């Protein structure tokens, strides 16, 4: 460890690694020496299945600018997803509630 910039979070999702899809339970994020990315330091995130050991892991290393772009795009999509779900929910309730017609 040449920085102390690291976090471990519980996480629910699926990811695909070399052995196929797996159920992920943790997300690691950090900023330290990368394994593969061509820079002295890199932002990293790992989607892992701790319950299965560390063999199930999808790893990404990128520079801080790319990390921000990724974060912004994910937030934008998450916001759009919230809007979509809210709108769909309203339509659904309108179509099933006679009083709303």
């Amino acid at each position: 460890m040449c920085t102390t910039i690291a976090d471990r979070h519980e996480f629910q999702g699926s990811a695909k690694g070399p052995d196929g899809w797996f159920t992920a339970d943790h997300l690691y994020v950090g900023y330290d020496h990368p394994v593969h990315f061509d820079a002295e330091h890199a932002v990293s995130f790992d989607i892992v299945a701790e319950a299965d050991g560390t063999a199930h892991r999808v790893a990404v290393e990128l520079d801080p600018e790319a990390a921000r772009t990724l974060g912004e795009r994910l937030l934008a999509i998450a916001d759009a997803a919230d809007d979509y779900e809210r709108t769909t929910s309203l339509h659904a309730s309108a179509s099933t509630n006679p009083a709303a017609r």
Partner: protein
Amino acid sequence: MTRTDAYEGLLAETVTVVGDGGDEIHAYFARPLGRGPFGAVVLFHHLPGWDAWYRATTRRFAEYGYLALSPDLYCRDGHGEPDDVAARVRAEGGVPDDRVVADARGCVDWLRSLPQASGRLALFGTCSGGRHAFLCACRIGDIDAVVDCWGGRIVVGDDDLTAKQPVAPIDYTADLDAPLLGLFGNDDKSPAPADVDTLEAALKQHGKDYAFHRYDGAGHGFFYDDRPAAYRAEAAVDGWRKVRAFLTENIG
């Protein structure tokens, strides 16, 4: 005179060493064939884990004529490819310093117990391993030489200490009783040149035996020939020569 028809051989294998808390930790061990007596080296692997570069470097020290032992400091953190295990360790804030020191003490005792051992012993490490080599030399004592290659976070501010690394290694400088060789790249950010200056000032203040070499045009990890972006051939060749001369002088 070197005889080209002289027999030489080398053995490399995984072994088990008793570490912190009586845990059996695995380690990669390489040694020259023969009765010795041989000096010994403990290698502390870097942040990316107990990987192929460290195994190759362990064999390199055996080729130099030493009993070389590289413990897997992440062996309690699961199986898998080195970078997968290292990712988990990193996410949990690294390994505790006290555990590394106890594991290293087990490695020192194991090496010195071997019938081929001369008793002379050095610690070597790169990156976080350089930090561990310095830390363990200070805290274990009775070490004959220590090689710190670009060890980061030896110089740490109080606000950057953690429960697992509660003391900045530089604060143990007064306890260092082994000659220290330090190799650093001037483009490195961890340790940055200012950190190296701070460590050098502490060594001078305490009257320690040390030699620092700083390389222009080199950053972090300039020995790593498996990483084209980090590797610097001229600095690496010169650095390895200095490591070998330093070990010859101090552990035979």
